[in-house]
């Protein structure tokens, strides 16, 4: 799998040449401008195929069949829940959606990572401190719990680039930000009728 991603990265760098200050020059600048701090190590500055492909302004003309190949590759890499159970506990899901910490140099690595969903999405209608970078997910449960909807929602959380390449949303599963159980809890927070996301604001 590593070879495939590397291969795609090489093609990408070529197609992005018109746009970039030489890629290796920017890597050198970043290397001289940052220093590792606690869990935030310098390896984090090395880009993979998705990051390289998506490091261009909106509307930059990009090689479409290369992007399609990358999207396909991301879709195939999605790992569905081992036991086939998509929904966990929405109360724990609420905590994951609210917790903005995790993986920062200032965070305690022994603590669970947050999903920080409220940073970009409206969820429970009663919560006024929500972001608008992503669409509102209020009442998401109305979409029902068909196998297709469970799989779609799971894949969006696991690696949104499987559907929408260069989305701004983090790859919560693929990048190991959230555990399988945390993803299940967030799924419940979104889809469980009892979750405040699917209730009227009190």
């Amino acid at each position, binding site marked *: 799998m590593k070879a495939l991603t590397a291969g795609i990265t090489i093609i990408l760098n070529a197609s992005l040449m018109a746009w970039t200050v030489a890629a290796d020059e920017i890597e050198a600048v970043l290397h001289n401008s940052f220093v590792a701090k606690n869990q935030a190590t310098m390896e984090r*500055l090395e880009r993979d195929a998705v990051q390289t492909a998506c490091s261009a302004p909106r509307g930059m003309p990009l090689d479409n069949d290369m992007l399609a190949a990358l999207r396909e590759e991301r879709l195939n890499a999605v790992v569905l829940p081992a036991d086939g159970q998509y929904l966990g506990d929405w109360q724990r899901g609420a905590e994951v959606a609210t917790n903005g910490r995790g993986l920062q140099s200032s965070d305690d690595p022994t603590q669970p990572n947050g999903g920080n969903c409220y940073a970009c999405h409206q969820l429970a209608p009663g919560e006024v401190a929500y972001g*608008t*970078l992503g669409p509102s997910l209020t009442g998401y449960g109305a979409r029902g719990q068909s196998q297709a909807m469970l799989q779609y929602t799971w894949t969006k959380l696991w690696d949104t680039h499987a559907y929408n390449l260069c989305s701004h949303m983090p790859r919560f599963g693929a990048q190991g930000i959230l555990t399988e159980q945390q993803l299940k809890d967030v799924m419940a927070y979104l889809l469980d009728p009892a979750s405040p996301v699917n209730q009227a604001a009190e």
Partner: protein
Amino acid sequence: MKRHHLGLTLFAAWLCSVPLAADDGVFDQYRDLMGDDNPAVFVIDEGEELWFMPQGPESATLEACDLGLGPGVTAGAYVRFPRYFADADAVMDLESRLVHCMTTIQGRDLEAVTAKPYSLRGDFGTEMEALVTWLAAESEGATIAPEQTHAAERAMYSLGEEIFYYRAGPHDFSCATCHEQSGMRIRLQALPDLTSHTGAAEAWGSWPAYRISQGLVRTMGWRLRDCFRQQRWPELQMGSEASIALQTYMAVNAAGGTMTAPGLKR
């Protein structure tokens, strides 16, 4: 809890340069009550005192420091940054220029003056924060006009633009993730579109700013470092090429706007 709209309240001072707030006015009442009593005024005085304070082995003040308009000229100097300095053969931001003067004029040790540029929790302000705050106030009201005449200055702009879009780290974040569209917000924190003139002028023109959440004035150098921390990146170094490049990108996008620093922010 009914959201309280005070749309009718006219708070001209706040309306002037801010597009319809992305947080749709939810903090208007709060900002109206805060008024314009900004504790940054103390930090301005402290910065001025430090400029004229003899320090280092040379026990020299910073009056001989050339910020681009001639030695000791501070009025209107900040709005021309980042800019190329022949004596250092480098494009510098205000912070790296001050470090240059501290080492060359005052004879101070580079390690010492760069050891702790920004206040840590429990500190009540640093020398760098105070100097930058005063020098920003010396440009208050001036038009933002970063130098772009030198090839190195223009190269810094394109390098800055590329770093702005560079996605990395576990969350694939770049600056553009949050600052590439207007009218957006993270929770209730409005996000300026730094690729646009309006957004860049509002952001570049209002830093350094007093952060009420910390009781400190923070510089743009710190602002970039703290943004990268939240992007889950390693730590951005003060006066580094990446920092100067990003500041050049923002300042050039903001050109023509008005410097209103020091601001008053969350």
